[in-house]
């Protein structure tokens, strides 16, 4: 097959979003053209990533030798299975996220939409940079770029509350990355003399278990985007952002970039063998399990729908971290699967929350009694997303939980399996009441009025339907993803 070389594709995938941002900025005066630019960018990006994935599925590892900045610091890219999966998820969902944004922002008549779409494009560009980074420096560069480009999105309303949350967002993410993540990178460099992601461990035999354990801590808490407790505060605070941004934070890019970075560090810097139960990294299993359970418990007590979903994200992200910490073959596969399945499910839930807000102006769970009769499609999608988060068939979420459970057993850690099961029950307890009450509880409005269907604008509805269907597809089509993940060193 003759086509563009893989190297060119990598370059295109990195360049298209930034070119798109320029186009959006240039077309700011004509909203229809501007939105077209966003959608064209999304489609082109996804097409390129999809073409690239064909090569990666075939076992290739396309590289793009970049700039050697200084000894050890190189802006270089290499597409490996984990990054490929992340790029596929992010670029695919970004199109839906954009369609939804257009419906949402227009329905709300939001100000400063051009800035919004420019930052939106810059953010996905940074995400692709993270996914394809060949070394810790490139990863760190785009990690920071993602924080900075999403700041204007989080503070979009520019109300005092939004600015406060924005400051927390920025300080916590920049702060942890500078004070913990960057020193971790420097220490890695000092110990191993390289920052490249290569199969096997960079640190094997170069540091005592104590140092390894401490370094792992610097990485896990330095990558604040993964929202491992106690550095999760920024995530619930960031819910002041418009709902499309929440979807971007929780599903498409930001938190996923966090757990992706942790997975990447575990697989390519420490090497799976260096962690596992009974080694220096064991503490992480405990911390992640605690984060997993606490997130669910706090979610139970939230009446604000977005806050409940935010804590649910904290809990669900911890699944990925548990998988990374167990570091057995099945656990690593499960962690990768969880990135994909949680993304599809959580974006559906946030789309639904936004749709409810646009169509009915409701934000609290207690206000949603009977709303399913007015918004049947939205609440059905919500139900589907919930089932996937809980991990029930026939939804994609089942597979990631299944593999993580198998991974726990491979590690001889039956108690982790127990934690996962309890957490599933908890997530059922905080999610399922919402669709159940929406469909079956009596509506607080006077019964004399006939019930009218009153759904969100079509773009929103379209987006959330597609993501719900995607969650179902992931149940039936999980094998290609699992096959891709088997290419990750140490996974299986």
């Amino acid at each position, binding site marked *: 097959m003759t086509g563009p070389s893989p190297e060119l594709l990598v370059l295109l995938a990195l360049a298209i979003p930034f070119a798109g941002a320029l186009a959006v900025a240039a077309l700011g005066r004509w909203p229809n053209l501007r939105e077209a630019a966003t959608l064209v960018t999304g489609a082109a990006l996804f097409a390129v990533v999809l073409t690239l994935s064909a090569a990666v599925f075939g076992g290739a590892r396309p590289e793009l030798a970049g700039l050697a900045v200084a000894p050890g*610091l190189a*802006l270089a890219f290499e597409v490996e299975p984990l990054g490929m999966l992340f790029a596929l998820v992010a670029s695919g969902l970004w199109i839906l996220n954009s369609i939804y944004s257009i419906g949402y922002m227009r329905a709300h008549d939001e100000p400063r939409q051009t800035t919004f779409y420019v930052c939106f494009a810059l953010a996905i560009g940074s995400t692709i940079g993270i996914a394809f980074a060949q070394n810790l420096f490139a990863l760190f560069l785009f990690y920071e770029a993602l924080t*900075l480009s999403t700041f204007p999105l989080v*503070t979009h309303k520019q109300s005092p509350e939004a*600015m406060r949350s924005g400051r927390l967002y920025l300080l916590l993410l*920049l*702060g942890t990355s500078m004070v913990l993540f960057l*020193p971790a990178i420097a*220490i890695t460099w000092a110990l191993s003399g390289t920052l490249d992601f290569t199969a096997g461990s960079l640190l094997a035999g170069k540091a005592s278990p104590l140092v390894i354990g401490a370094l792992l801590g610097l990485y896990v808490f330095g990558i604040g985007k993964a929202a491992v407790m106690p550095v999760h505060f920024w995530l619930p605070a960031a819910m002041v952002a418009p709902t499309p941004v929440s979807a971007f934070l929780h599903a498409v890019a930001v938190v996923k970039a966090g757990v992706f970075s942790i997975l990447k560090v575990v697989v390519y810097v420490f090497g799976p063998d260096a962690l596992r139960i009974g080694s220096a990294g064991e503490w992480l299993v405990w911390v992640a399990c605690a984060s997993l359970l606490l997130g669910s418990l706090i979610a139970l007590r939230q009446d604000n729908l977005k806050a409940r979903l935010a804590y649910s994200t904290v809990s669900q992200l911890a699944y990925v971290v548990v998988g990374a910490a167990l570091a057995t073959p099945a656990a690593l596969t499960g962690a990768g699967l969880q990135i994909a399945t949680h993304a599809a499910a959580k974006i559906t839930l946030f789309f639904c929350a936004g749709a409810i807000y646009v169509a009915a102006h409701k934000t609290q769970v207690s206000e949603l009694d009977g709303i399913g009769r007015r918004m049947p499609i939205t609440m059905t999608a919500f139900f589907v997303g919930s089932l996937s988060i809980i991990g029930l068939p026939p939804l994609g979420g089942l597979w990631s939980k299944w593999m993580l459970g198998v991974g726990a057993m491979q590690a001889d850690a039956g108690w982790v399996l127990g934690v996962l099961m309890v957490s599933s029950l908890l997530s059922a307890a905080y999610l399922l009441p919402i669709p159940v009450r929406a469909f079956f509880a009596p509506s607080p409005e006077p019964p004399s009025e006939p019930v009218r269907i009153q759904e969100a604008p079509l773009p929103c509805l379209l987006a959330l339907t597609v993501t719900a269907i995607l969650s179902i597809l992931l149940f039936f089509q999980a094998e290609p993803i699992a096959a891709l993940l088997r290419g990750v060193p140490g996974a299986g």
Partner: protein
Amino acid sequence: MTVLAAQLPALLIVLPLIAAALVALVRSDRVAFAITLAVSLVLPVIAALLLHRALVAGPISYQLGGWSPPWGIEYRIDVLNGFVLMLVSAVAAVAAPYARRSLAAELGDGHATFYAIYLLCLTGLLGVTITGDAFNVFVFLEISSLATYALIAMGRHRRAALAAFQYLIVGTIGATFYVIGVGFLYLLTGTLNLADMAQRLAALPDEQSRAVLTATAFITVGVSLKLALFPLHFWLPKAYTYAPSWAAAFLSATATKVAIYLLVRFFFTVLGVDVVFDRVLLALSLAGMFIASVIAIYESNIKRMMAYSSIAQIGYITLGMALSNKAGLTGALVHLLNHAVTKGTLFLALGAVALRLGSVKLQDLAGLGRRMPLTMGAFSVAAFGIIGTPGTAGFISKWYLATGALEAGEATLAFLIVASSLVSVIYMGRVLEVTWFRPPSPLALQAKDPPLSMLGPIVIFAAASVYLGLDTRGSASIASLAADQLLGARP
């Protein structure tokens, strides 16, 4: 041609000196500016030739008036001061076109003398850097300092004179300390040539070490006053705040850098400083990094905020010196350049703001981002550079400093280096938030980007601060070469 090439070191000093005399005779602002601009553009070419020769063929020795060292004055250019000469002259060249409009607005017509004084200042700074003679350093130091006092005093704010006077007192004390220190060294060694002095000091018997220590102390304190090492920094915020904007930008990018060069030269080439000095320097650097940054948070005059930020950034450089290993020293030297470019952008952008708004108070800058997008865009890029975001020059410096700290086995220090940049997130974040996310202030509503002669230098500096974060062949590679030479020469 070869005759001219041999005279390049002298030319670098003589050219601005003659131009200064010429400009002093001129009445017309326009002619004065034209001469200044022409000279400023020629100097980096000479400096580049010298640096190139020093890199390729080793140190250049130029005997002034044909008197051979150690009796005559020697200009000696190795990689280190070639790098600093390049830095000073390049900054001067890029910033020069900016002067005309900015000075006309701030000083009014009839400011031709300002150019003459500026050229004298430039002569002094280049002279301090190029010369290999300890007393000649003092002469050039005084030329540049006296010129600096005058530059600051010409600021239109009435406190400018007071700021200049305070700096004059401090600067004179500093120069006196320096001369006393050099006097001690002359007594001990009988020479003023730096290279010669270094050799004789190394051969000195142990009982003389107390005198050397005294000399070191005097020189360190004297030069530290010049470079605004915490806690000898108190003159700097006032001086930069009330000086004309262009002078503030030029001085912040060059004057303190040259003083730091001088300290590096004495510490590493001449004296070979012992551990005690390193620990003191380390502690003061850290204190400066944190305290000055915290003060910056509470400043509402942005020019003064940037001045305190400079003091903190100087702390990074002296910290790298104190580490005195290869990575640390490379970080210090490369930060001379990186900080010059970054802070130059910030001060020049503020000069443009002052031109359009007549104010650099934080509340007046509200919403300015959309009114002066290119100026504030450049300001923001440089702000990220100060914070040390990867992809900017500031990150490169910080990376070298942090790895230098780890190399020295000081993991805590590496943490403190990155933690201090978190403080800069707070003050820079505050400015960026107000300028981009607030509704425009009444003053900002009228503003627009400055004319091209000012915008050009701002954008070039901002672009350089990103470029130097992505391609370090011209910065960190040379700095690490210089660091190698310095550490190799250290007794």
